[in-house]
């Protein structure tokens, strides 16, 4: 039953998005603007761009993700669908897991589309490090979606939810952002893995701890 509910929530969110293209298009549009602004800002100074690129990538990914996370539960307000989720006998943890999986996929799709643009605009050499970079993206994006999904549910009933979500979420995901930036910087510089392995470990630990806590808290939040 748990697995079925997870699958159906993912299916519903992906199908809804595939048809409306509301979330992905706004995420992509925002991210493209960020890339263009940064690429023009650093066009005269490639040295500075190389040093800051990891931070720029994660600023773009995190704020783009925030758009998708914000829509994850606000979309359920139409026709009071959130009420049906709350009142259904399905395990609330399964609904949370489904939402996390769908948000993770949306964010990863946008990142996979955007990263080649970063490579082109900032002249990055990533061929040898691509598998490590993908691992970093995977871990950090999962952390963002695990915590972000919980806070999306927490803020959905608040009138100023678009403002409250980043205010509440960003301080909490600072460890993910720092670890992601440091690990990405190490990989892009071609450093040996042991030099930034601790950041990957931090990401993995963050994911385990915050996923378990969020999974447990979701039941209370969705019922409140």
């Amino acid at each position: 039953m748990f697995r079925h509910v997870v699958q159906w929530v993912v299916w519903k969110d992906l199908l809804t998005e595939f048809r409306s293209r509301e979330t992905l298009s706004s995420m992509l549009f925002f991210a493209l603007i960020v890339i263009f602004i940064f690429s023009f800002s650093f066009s005269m100074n490639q040295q500075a761009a190389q040093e800051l690129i990891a931070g720029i990538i994660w600023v773009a990914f995190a704020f783009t993700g925030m758009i998708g996370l914000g829509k994850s539960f606000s979309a359920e307000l139409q026709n009071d669908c959130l009420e049906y989720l709350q009142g259904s006998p399905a395990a609330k943890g399964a609904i949370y897991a489904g939402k996390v999986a769908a948000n993770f996929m949306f964010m990863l799709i946008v990142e996979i589309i955007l990263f080649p643009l970063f490579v082109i605009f900032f002249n990055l050499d990533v061929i040898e490090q691509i598998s490590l970079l993908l691992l970093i993206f995977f871990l950090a994006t999962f952390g963002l979606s695990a915590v972000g999904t919980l806070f999306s549910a927490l803020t959905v009933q608040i009138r100023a939810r678009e403002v409250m979500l980043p205010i509440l979420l960003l301080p909490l995901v600072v460890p993910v952002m720092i670890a992601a930036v440091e690990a990405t910087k190490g990989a892009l510089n071609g450093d040996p893995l042991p030099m930034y392995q601790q950041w990957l470990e931090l990401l993995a630990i963050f994911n385990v701890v915050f996923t378990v806590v969020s999974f447990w808290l979701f039941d209370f939040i969705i019922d409140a």
Partner: protein
Amino acid sequence: MPAIRVQDLSHSYGHYQVLRQVTLEISQGTCYTLLGANGSGKTTLLRILATLLRPTSGRIEILGRDGVTDKTLIRRSLLFLAHGSHLYEELNALENLQFALALRGLFPTPRQLKLVLDRVGIGAFASMKVRHYSAGMKKRLSFAKAMLAAPDILLLDEPFTALDHSGVELVQDYIREVLNRNGTILMSTHDPEKARVVSQQVGLLRQGTLHPWTWRQKDAS
């Protein structure tokens, strides 16, 4: 054992008290109609019984289960058709039914889905996105969900709103069918004439207080 038991139930939104010491018992196989003006607390009472709202004070029992501690068990045996349709606009009727029922652990066959959509009169629009549906079609689709879910207790908030004559008859027939299989229905309505055909008990909510009524009293008023 009554299907629904409410004891001294009160509920407030901030300083505004919506329900005052409501006490109510509904036996299995009975349809109870809740009348009352706008803001009298009908939807709040239904939402509390659907375990969506926690009452400020008092106690509810659904099929002998406590409304606060046994929520999951209650939710398995109860379905709330609210004023909002609980439908996803980008999905079609079949997909909406599949998703809603999957959350209840039910997986109807395509044939069962088609039959029930035909019965509620929207079989020809099964593949159309719900965002193109009229309010009446959405209401019919909600009843299709109830027919497939077959809950022991059905809570209906304004079930006749937006329905044409055939839609009203469809809902009345469905209510009779639920009662025949010993199901229990509590509905709120502004349209007592449509409800009295199928309803055995009636109560009037006035300023948060429930007054048990009879249809004869209603006629006299």
